[in-house]
């Protein structure tokens, strides 16, 4: 495989412009100093309680996502292009959601096979004809980007349901500013700290119409044992809204209400961090203890806004992913600014044949999987693993997509014995309400194991602060 593009050194040679100040600084740092700073960062994270739970891990409890102290840097010019591409993409995704829950023009035009939508468990027939305020379904989207060259950013996947990680973006920055104030004086880094404010504005802008007073907003969490609980409480705190669990909510007289010290109080906008299935046991999973019975009726009658809307997940379904360029063209009339990664839908016989012949070179993912579980990374797998996966693939091809193994860009990272290149991706967070608001930066995830391409925190990945430079 060709050497990967390095964020600092390109394909070798001169240090790239956005990294010059960092490289100069790094050149005079002792490894021991860096290690000590790294240890200090860990203490800071642990004290503030930034932990996550790993599903299925015995010793789980609370763990820290490893933080790497060397930042990932994006120039103003690079960011401008990403910004345009992301805005185009998220507007298209919302237009697509509106369409498939209304007239389904895109299906009539034959741009997407109908059964991919109608037979998809992420498509909610209950949402047909529902009109969310401003026509927005997915208000908070995390767009996962990978880079393979100087000008080659690609979208690896969209997260249109309940994307997480934004609290790490914010805390990583806090920690870096605490540990390395001098680095910030040498680089003009655009701030990200107004994210909670932008989120609050977005939520307020999609409140139901005809309210007598300012909308009351609440954030619904599954509870303290959820892996992203820290983030839920962090965001509620930063926005100054109530953090509620389903037992704090009740539907009475056609309105959603929360149980306060002064009795019941109406909730107008619910930023929910529970999945669709668990939202309303009367409509979806009847065994759910996390949901609020009757909330879907309140939603359908337009008296509460649920963010993101139920059914928004159809837009980030992996089976739909390969149609996103067509979706963008269909709704905007323009070609996509950000490319997709080439993708084989194993449901198509020709693609399946190709995938089976090239398993050792490809990354194969479950259509409904997430978090790096249930996937095959061909070049990193043993023959036995590949053969075992082949059997699963043949048994149920519609459940899989495949992509070429990308040579993800690398970035200098503090490893055991030295500073060394490690592969990474980028998840910018974008808010869609009365306008599109994109934070300059995002969450950079880095695979800490040498050569590894899996950046998920559940699989040994860490994070870095992400700097977007001022012009």
């Amino acid at each position, binding site marked *: 495989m060709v050497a990967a593009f390095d964020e600092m050194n390109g394909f070798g040679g001169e240090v790239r412009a956005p990294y010059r100040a960092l490289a100069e600084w790094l050149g005079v740092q002792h490894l021991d100093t860096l290690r000590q700073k790294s240890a200090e960062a860990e203490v800071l994270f*642990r*004290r*503030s*309680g930034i932990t996550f739970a790993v599903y299925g891990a015995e010793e789980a409890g609370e763990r820290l996502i490893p933080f790497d102290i060397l930042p990932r840097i994006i120039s103003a010019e690079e960011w401008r292009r990403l910004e345009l591409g992301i805005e185009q993409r998220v507007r298209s995704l919302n237009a697509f959601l509106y369409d498939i829950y209304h007239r389904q023009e895109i299906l009539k035009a034959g741009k997407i096979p109908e059964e991919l939508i109608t037979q998809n468990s992420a498509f909610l027939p209950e949402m047909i004809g529902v009109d969310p305020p401003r026509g927005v379904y997915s208000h908070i989207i995390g767009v996962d980007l990978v880079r393979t060259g100087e000008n080659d950013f690609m979208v690896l996947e969209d997260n249109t349901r309940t994307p997480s990680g934004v609290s790490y973006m914010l805390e990583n920055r806090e920690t870096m500013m605490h540990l390395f104030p001098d680095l910030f004086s040498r680089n003009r880094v655009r701030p990200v700290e107004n994210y909670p404010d932008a989120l609050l504005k977005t939520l307020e802008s999609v409140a139901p119409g005809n309210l007598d007073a300012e909308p009351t907003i609440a954030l619904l969490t599954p509870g*303290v044992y959820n892996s992203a*609980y*820290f983030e839920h*409480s*962090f965001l*509620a*705190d930063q926005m100054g809204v*109530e*953090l*509620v*669990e389903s*037992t*704090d909510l009740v539907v009475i007289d056609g309105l959603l209400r*929360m*149980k*306060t*010290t*002064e*009795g019941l109080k109406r909730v107008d906008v619910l930023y929910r961090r529970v999945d669709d299935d668990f939202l309303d046991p009367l409509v979806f999973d009847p065994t759910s203890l996390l949901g609020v019975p009757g909330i879907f009726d309140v939603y359908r009658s337009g008296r509460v806004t649920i963010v993101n809307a139920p059914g928004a997940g159809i837009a980030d379904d992996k089976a739909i992913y390969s149609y996103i360029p067509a979706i963008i063209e269909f709704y905007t009339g323009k070609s996509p600014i950000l490319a997709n990664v080439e993708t084989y839908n194993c449901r198509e016989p020709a693609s399946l044949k190709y995938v089976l012949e090239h398993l050792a070179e490809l990354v194969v993912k479950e259509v409904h999987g997430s978090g790096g579980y249930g996937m095959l990374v061909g070049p990193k797998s043993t023959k036995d693993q590949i053969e075992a996966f082949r059997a699963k693939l043949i048994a149920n091809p519609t459940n899989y997509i495949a992509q070429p193994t990308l040579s993800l860009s690398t970035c200098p990272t503090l490893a055991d014995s030295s500073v060394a290149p490690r592969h990474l991706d980028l998840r910018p967070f974008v808010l869609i309400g009365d306008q599109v608001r994109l934070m300059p930066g995002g969450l950079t995830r880095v695979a800490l194991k040498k050569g590894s391409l899996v950046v998920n925190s559940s699989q040994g990945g860490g994070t870095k602060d992400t700097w977007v430079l001022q012009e």
Partner: protein
Amino acid sequence: MLGRTANDLYWLSRYIERAENIARLLEVGYRIVLLPREGESFHEEWRSTLESAGCMQGYMQRHGELISQNVIDYMLFDTSNPSSIASCLANARRNGRAQRTALTREMWESLNSAWLEFSAIRPVTVTSNSLPELLDWVRSRSALYRGALLNTILRNDTYYFSQVGTFIERADSTARILDVKYYHLLPSSEMVGSEKDNYQWAALLRSVSAHRSYRWVFKDHYRPLKIADFMILNRQMPRSLRSCYDELTAALRDLAVFYGARHDCQMTAEATRDLLLEADMSNIFQSGLHEFVQDFIGRNNKLGNEISAAYHFSD
């Protein structure tokens, strides 16, 4: 504010206050056990410590016999004991984590680091030499949390519910110490002036952190009536029942103003405070200290229940 939030804040404060009170009781108990003494064994001291903490029954079920090491282990580390310091810190932190949004960063960090540090202690490493240091540490962590609360929290319902929890717990603790330890000392009070006696009275005051302030206020030797007066009716003593009720009525009055509504709990608190305001120590002794304290503990519990009902702690 959610009713659940109010409930968690109230209990968070109670647990922090309880950890501190338990640390003080243990410190005193341990000092007395170290004393050379005739006749009566150290068992009595541990008995009164456990009774003051409301842990006697649980302890006897678990260990059956009063042994210093077991008492210390039960009160410090045993998570089956809901009032052990380990349980208090874990519960306080659990409540704090569930209400992370209601706490300031300083409050949360003091809570979280207290729990992390305490969890890292291996019980076998706690020897008689390191015990005082550990108990000091518990008190300092409680003080740090209270300090963070007082210095950083908005003066709204978050603050009021925290105050209410702290002072209901403190009033309960002081009342129990009076009922158990003070009562236990009374029969020997005729031997005023004996060295042991003085030491015991000092220890009693020490368990409410008042052995030096007593001298400042009274400029006198330890006298049973004055000690009781100091712990019950004195408005300067920050752990007296009167002080606790000054704080409680203030916090509840602020809550009523904040929400624009009064409930039964405001009236109950004010009635108890009026009682403490008007009471006279010699009258209390005449009609029975034990009865007085029992009545007080009952009133204090009733107040807790009324607050819980008024503010929908668990609907």
